[in-house]
């Protein structure tokens, strides 16, 4: 994949989203109207907007755990809005990576295997997958003595780095990053930024939320203001 390819890897069109709160009198909350954006291979696009503007909501809709009310979300040649669950599962396995702010793992599984798992589900041999995992953990300064322990007992910063290692284990063509540098010290922040640069260099399309302005400036090629998709009181897009 090359950076001058014109076909976007991620293309969001006319996307809208409501929350219906059935247990609070069926209140319908429109949270997004007419969202449009594209991310090309080798490009990193930053989502900006005030807290609550819907940056994480948009990201979750692309990931597929939030349903859209209308519109389309093309990741590669799959429309996540219309896709069957198994198509989304396949997409998440091979194509779309996601580094969330929370590490959710089966307790007791060693950190090394947590990081290697995305490779194992793709059929990578265990030795190779573990080697890749070890390489990432080392780069992210997780001491080797912790690798055989479950990350559930780690500090917030350590968990975040394990999460990043897991997200970068497989070279996904598309990546969603939800505040990957939050709660990291300067050294580890630099490692994460270099991982993002490397991913861009190999052609990954990256959509990120970065509160850290310095990090944002270093890796993002463009910005999209999610505030412009926030519905006004009449429900129309801004």
């Amino acid at each position, binding site marked *: 994949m090359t950076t001058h390819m014109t076909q976007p890897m991620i293309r969001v069109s006319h996307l809208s989203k409501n*929350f*219906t*709160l*059935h*247990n609070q009198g069926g209140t319908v909350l429109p949270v997004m109207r007419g969202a449009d954006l594209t991310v090309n291979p080798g490009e990193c696009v930053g989502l900006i907007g005030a807290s609550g503007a819907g940056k994480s909501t948009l990201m*979750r809709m692309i990931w*597929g*755990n*939030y*349903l859209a009310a209308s519109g389309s979300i093309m990741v590669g040649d799959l429309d996540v809005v219309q896709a069957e*669950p*198994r198509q*989304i*599962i396949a997409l998440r396995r091979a194509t779309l990576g996601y580094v969330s702010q929370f590490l*959710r793992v*089966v*307790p*007791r*599984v060693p950190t090394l295997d947590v990081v290697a798992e995305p490779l*194992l*589900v793709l059929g990578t041999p265990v030795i190779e997958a573990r080697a890749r995992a070890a390489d990432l953990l080392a780069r992210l300064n997780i001491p080797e003595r912790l690798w055989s322990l479950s990350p559930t007992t780690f500090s917030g910063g350590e968990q975040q780095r394990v999460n990043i290692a897991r997200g970068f284990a497989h070279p996904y063509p598309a990546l969603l990053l939800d505040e990957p540098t939050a709660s990291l010290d300067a050294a580890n922040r630099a490692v994460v930024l270099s991982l993002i640069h490397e991913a861009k260099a190999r052609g990954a399309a990256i959509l990120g939320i970065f509160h850290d302005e310095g990090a944002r400036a270093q890796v993002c090629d463009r910005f999209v203001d999610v505030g412009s998709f926030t519905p006004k009181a009449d429900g129309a897009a801004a």
Partner: protein
Amino acid sequence: MTLMHPLPVAADSPLLAVRDLTKRYGSRIGCADVSFDLWPGEVLGIVGESGSGKSTLLSCLAGHLRPDEGEVIFATAQGPRDVLQMAEAERRRLARSDWAFVHQNPRDGLRMGVTAGGNVGERLMAVGARHYGDIRARATDWLGRVEIAAERIDDRPSAFSGGMQQRLQIARNLVTGPRLVFMDEPTGGLDVSVQARLLDLLRGLVREMGLSAIIVTHDLAVVRLLADRLMVMKSGRVVEQGLTDQVLDDPQHAYTQLLVSSVLQV
């Protein structure tokens, strides 16, 4: 037999296709109009409160209960077949080769008077294994895979802890390399730490063996970690189904919203 939904056996066809499955207990509904496809390698979670029909549904799927209406089409080696139309001999053959059933209570799924090795070996012998040394070697291997020490092979399950019994039940079920596993509250009744170990084990086995599984549970944390897809049942009907994290993070149905918000943390 005419199939209403002919399913060619190809890499890209469902392993199990359920159509309009209904089971009534007199005038009461056990489960009604349940339809779904299960694809190879997929884990489907079925959640709902007690009495929601999830166990009835599982029993109907696994052939323990006869549904009143519907089809359960399984991709057998000879092509897709409606399990409900099969002769009992054939269905039972399927149940001990291609299928497996993990009971909530290991006592229901194990022979308590038979050694661990005999319990694991039974399914092998049932499908024709007649070499003691081979049977024992495979039983030993499987005990290892479910983290039971090889020297316990000649102990009876009554001497095992609850978690070990459950792991033994899993070994006994998976030794013949089934393609579809039914699990009824597999982690119910176990301590939290034992549950975690079992979940990890199940996840690894599902991945390594390419198993498809249907897991009935009321524990949303369990399905979050194990299931690719989720079906939510209420009063015998499926009220919502979709990707597990989508159903849990963005529930659409009032009942699912209530269910998710009632849990402390999932």
